[in-house]
């Protein structure tokens, strides 16, 4: 539906296409919208969630302060240390799978419920999107690499699956679905096949459909009460949001940009899939289609196996390791593997010029997990890494140790404030934990 307004490099190609089939309609130069490069660099925010913690003892840097010593798991990122800020000793409110996933970006205590009145708290990515996401065709983009259908019985007892299926909540009661199909993400970014005239015509139609839908919804909500009315109002609000985004996309002027081949579907190998999602994230930032991205590498109770690195035991089963040395070693291997995949993304950001610097200079990516010790689902000292400088929001090259039991929420409040929110509290925050 949306079309980029920024020039992409002609060499832009998507990795991980494997046996993918190039789509003829996107091979050609596609006229799209765009304007002269922005005068001042824009800030971007991303959050990458990895499941089941980082192996304690192999994650936290071994020294504190600047020029810190990287530990084993972070090693692949060594060359980007100047852009890294590690914060240790932050804590989630509760142990567990559902609770730590839900709280990771909300800093809140999710309501214990199987279905009724699901309630978590708005997540920091959405608060930031409210600040910096207004000018782009997509306010935020939510991605994942694990299909959460087909895991019946795989959610935390007493907690709705919704808490584990996403890391992003638009508000306390609205989880944002995470998209796993690169093709769908691509279509959200660049639209369905067709000429620019056809795309414009489609946008106009979509907008008039939304206009008319608003009228319809107003009529429908008459006479409704309680939760039914709330749901209709949610619907209405969402219609408005999409409508304003289409208007933004329509207003942007035309330029010529080469759009890469569209991915055809979901790659079979996890590594290819993840690489493709990272590429789409980088592309979305580069083309300024969105400034806020969240990415869930796997569900928290993921039973994924990683044959490529010789880890064939399912992740969740292995994460309850009982101090078995082989399992512990494999967990470190797996954590490092995830960081290594992430490195490709960081590298891409570092190599992409943006205004006076690079994308990495103007982006802040939070990388981490909701727990530390997976065997006990520990909420203590959860792994927290910031990569990038967010356009001067952090100085980088730092390992900061927070006072023990500092709520993650205090840190999330800082992030929200850094990106312009004037919130005084966030989730269960007690104060702002400021990261320089």
């Amino acid at each position, binding site marked *: 539906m949306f079309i980029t307004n920024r020039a992409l490099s002609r060499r832009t190609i998507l990795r991980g296409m494997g046996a993918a*089939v190039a789509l003829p309609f996107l091979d050609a130069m596609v006229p799209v919208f765009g304007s002269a490069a922005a005068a001042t660099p824009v800030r971007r925010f991303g959050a990458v969630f990895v499941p089941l913690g980082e192996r304690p003892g192999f994650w936290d840097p071994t020294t504190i302060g600047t020029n810190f010593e990287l530990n084993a798991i972070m090693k692949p990122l060594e060359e980007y240390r100047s852009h890294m800020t590690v914060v240790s000793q932050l804590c989630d409110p509760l142990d567990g799978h559902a609770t730590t996933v839900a709280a990771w970006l909300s800093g809140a205590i999710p309501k214990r419920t199987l279905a009724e009145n699901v309630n978590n708290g708005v997540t920091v990515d959405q608060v930031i999107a409210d600040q910096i996401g207004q000018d782009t065709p997509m306010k935020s983009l939510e991605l994942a690499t694990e299909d959460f259908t087909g895991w019946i019985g795989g959610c935390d007892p007493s907690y709705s699956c919704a808490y584990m299926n996403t890391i992003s909540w638009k508000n306390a009661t609205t989880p944002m679905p995470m998209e796993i199909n690169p093709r769908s993400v691509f279509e959200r970014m660049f639209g369905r096949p067709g000429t620019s005239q056809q795309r414009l015509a489609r946008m106009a139609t979509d907008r008039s459909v939304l206009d008319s839908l608003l009228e319809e919804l107003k009529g429908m909500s008459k006479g409704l009460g309680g939760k039914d009315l709330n749901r209709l109002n949610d619907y209405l609000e969402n219609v408005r949001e999409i409508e304003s985004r289409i208007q933004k996309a329509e207003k942007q002027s035309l330029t010529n940009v080469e759009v890469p081949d569209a991915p055809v579907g979901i790659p079979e190998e996890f590594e290819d899939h993840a690489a493709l999602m990272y590429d789409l994230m980088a592309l979305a930032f580069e083309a300024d289609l969105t400034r806020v991205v969240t990415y869930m590498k796997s569900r928290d109770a993921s039973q994924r196996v990683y044959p490529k690195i010789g880890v064939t035991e399912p992740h969740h089963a292995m994460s309850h390791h009982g101090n078995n040395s082989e399992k512990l070693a494999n967990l470190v291997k797996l954590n490092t593997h995830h960081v290594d995949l992430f490195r490709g993304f960081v590298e891409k950001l570092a190599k992409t010029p943006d205004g006076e610097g690079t994308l990495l200079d103007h982006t802040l990516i939070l990388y981490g997990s909701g727990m530390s010790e997976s*065997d006990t689902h520990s909420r203590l000292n959860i792994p927290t890494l910031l990569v990038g400088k967010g356009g001067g929001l952090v100085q980088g090259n730092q390992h900061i140790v927070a006072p023990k039991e500092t709520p993650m929420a205090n840190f999330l409040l800082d992030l929200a404030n850094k990106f312009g929110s004037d919130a005084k509290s966030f989730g269960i925050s007690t104060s702002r934990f400021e990261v320089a």
Partner: protein
Amino acid sequence: MRKLRLSRALTAAVLLALCWTWVDAREQAAAPRPVTPAATKSAPVKPAVAGPAQTPSHKATIDRYCVTCHSDRLKTAGLTLESIDTTHISAAPDVWERVVRKVRVGMMPPQGSPAPDATSRTALVTWLTGELDAHAAAHPDPGRPLVHRLNRSEYGNAIRDLLDLEIEPAGLLPADDSAYGFDNVADVLGVSPVLLERYLSAAGKVSALAVGDPESGVASETFRVRQDASQDRHVEGLPIGTVGGMLAHTTLPLDGEYVIQPRLFRTNLGAMRGLEYEHQLEITVDGARVHLASFGGDEDFKASLRNPTLAGDDVEARSRARVKLTAGPHTIGVAFIEKTAAQNSWRLQPFLRSSHDTFDPTGYPHIDVFSVTGPYSPTGSGDTPSRRRVFMCRPATAAEEEPCARRIVSTLARLAYRGQASDEDLQRLMSFYATGRKGGNFEKGIQLALQRMLASAKFALRVERDPAGAKPGSVYPLNSLDLASRLSFFLWSSIPDDELLRVAEQGKLRTPVVLRQQLRRMLADPKAESLVTNFAGQWLYLRNLKNMVPLSTEFVDFDDNLRRAFEQEAELFFASIMRENRSVLDLMDANYTFINERLAKHYNIPGIYGSHYRRVTLTDEARRGILGKGAILMVTSHTDRTSPVVRGKWVLDNLLGAPPPPMPANVPPLDENGQQAGRVLTMRERMEVHRRNPVCANCHKIMDPIGLAMENFDAVGSWRTREGGTHGTAIDASGVLLDGTKVDGIVSLRKALMRNPEIFVGTFVEKMMTYALGRGVAATDMPTVRQIVRDGASQNYRFASMVEGIVNSPAFQMRRVPTPQEQSE
């Protein structure tokens, strides 16, 4: 006691009958009015409290066996029964339903604690349920399901039924959250911008496909063969005389030329597999050959040795077909021509799975993926089922256009909006028609109107409206149209059809005989298959199969062909119970199943050849019912081994309706490589070590014996007598179940689970009710569940009688007006 229960059943029946009579009157008046609790109470109902004479002895039982732990001081599991009022059971249905659930299956009191004898146990449960049921009969609470958004599969089915158009909804909409084990629970079917955006874009795509938008550009669809699929045998549905490959269903937008491009498996070094011998690859469309390519043999093999990439590309260029195809649904197949035994000179192949080694360039060629790209040089919208459905009239003159458009739009909107399309709605749709007509032609106008219809909230949301002025907290019967929707979304996961809507519009649906007729008709309809894919698929975890990837080094024969066979078998088995209106108890112990050659090999059943599925009578008792099915045995296992815990928990959750308590924090896991006296411990031995920890013991005593009794089935459901290969330790499948029953394997376990059939049937009903209502089944619903089970007993728990019981229940037919508190939520 017996007499008392009977009278309660009668009361409930009378109540329901009252509702119907009342509703008939209402429908003539055509103005919804609420039933207040007061009105309900005026029905002749016996006092809720049973004879006080029984109370003291039950109170004594509770005091003696429960209060030791569930005291005010200890509050074990957050529950005290010490000072609870046993003279007003109905005051705390949540607590007492929990007690019933645990005591009934023998989960409480825990093993090793003093427990009442079977007679007092049964008496206690009977008394409690009697109290609860009587109160519920007098005070029905049907609940109030939230506004329900069509989930992904409902959306796909609705499009199919509205437009005669098969789409793959997973490509259009994101996955839905699920709760209580089902993805149609209204509470978690919320909306978000992304979701709405996808509904919007789906409306555009589907309407373009349905009318055959001439502007449909070139697009590509890709079909992937799973990497663990074996391709050395015939695949069901592909032409006889072929092996391997894949069959795909697609709907093409326009008449025109399409490029079908198969891609063959290449090793990690880029060499196409199987080039050392000659092969033929065949592409078929709707069963007819459209392309035959030869490859392999000396030339290709040598080329591959020189440059594997170029050689592979060359083969793929030869495999490509550009064919003229008509718009609409097609079945496209890609497969290899089978060689005669004389030609077949393969090496010895040790495993059933043909696609093990991803490094080996020799052996069978395999299809990896194929794509269909087009249309090129389109020649028109063609004659498709969806166009025939949509264009029910054809304007011959300009003057006929608008009336024809109105007819199309109102006919489709009636179905899409499920009888609730207002004049205003039609006006809105017609204004989109007008815009499209002005900017293009008649068909473009219809396409735009259709796009608007599919984007409508009236299509995407099921809203049940309380009657105006209804008293807060009162209960009222649903109007016929809402009832029609509940029925069709329950039985078909889709919108009502013309007949159901007509009956509802005429106000006849609430007549018991008509309702029954419709229900039977709908159950017999092929669309009821959604009960298999959506209900059974989730209840029994069949949907998890696609995520199960058994470790290939441990289960060398396992392939996707077997995974599909597991799924087919389980689905056909469940469908047979439904279609033949068998007893739901047959789900547990029917002596037949459905297999093909691949599955027969796995089950060691001789004399079964070919890829098609057929019904066979089982001689092996172990394979009877769902507990003997590969699908269930695999989804309850880990990738590398069985898990008695997962299996035990699955049985408790899904067959006995008594989920074990959640795992405590800080649990030491199983020692995977446990060794003792130089021997690897068996699963049983490792679990025994684990259970020595008292924190673990309590729950495991409940779960493990069930799972251990199933140990003769390995992680992919193969039968075994030893663990760890032919020289491993003999499996000991014996144990004592939570209620003290001794079992020695799968057969005696199944018999033990069946001894109180109403427990299994009750769980089945509870699960199906969750699915039917799209909400969690609450304590206040349990009396209804028990009623349905009791009523079903006389009909031997036949499938249709269970469904009828649910449909006839107040929970399904009625709705509660929000209380002031709910109103302000």
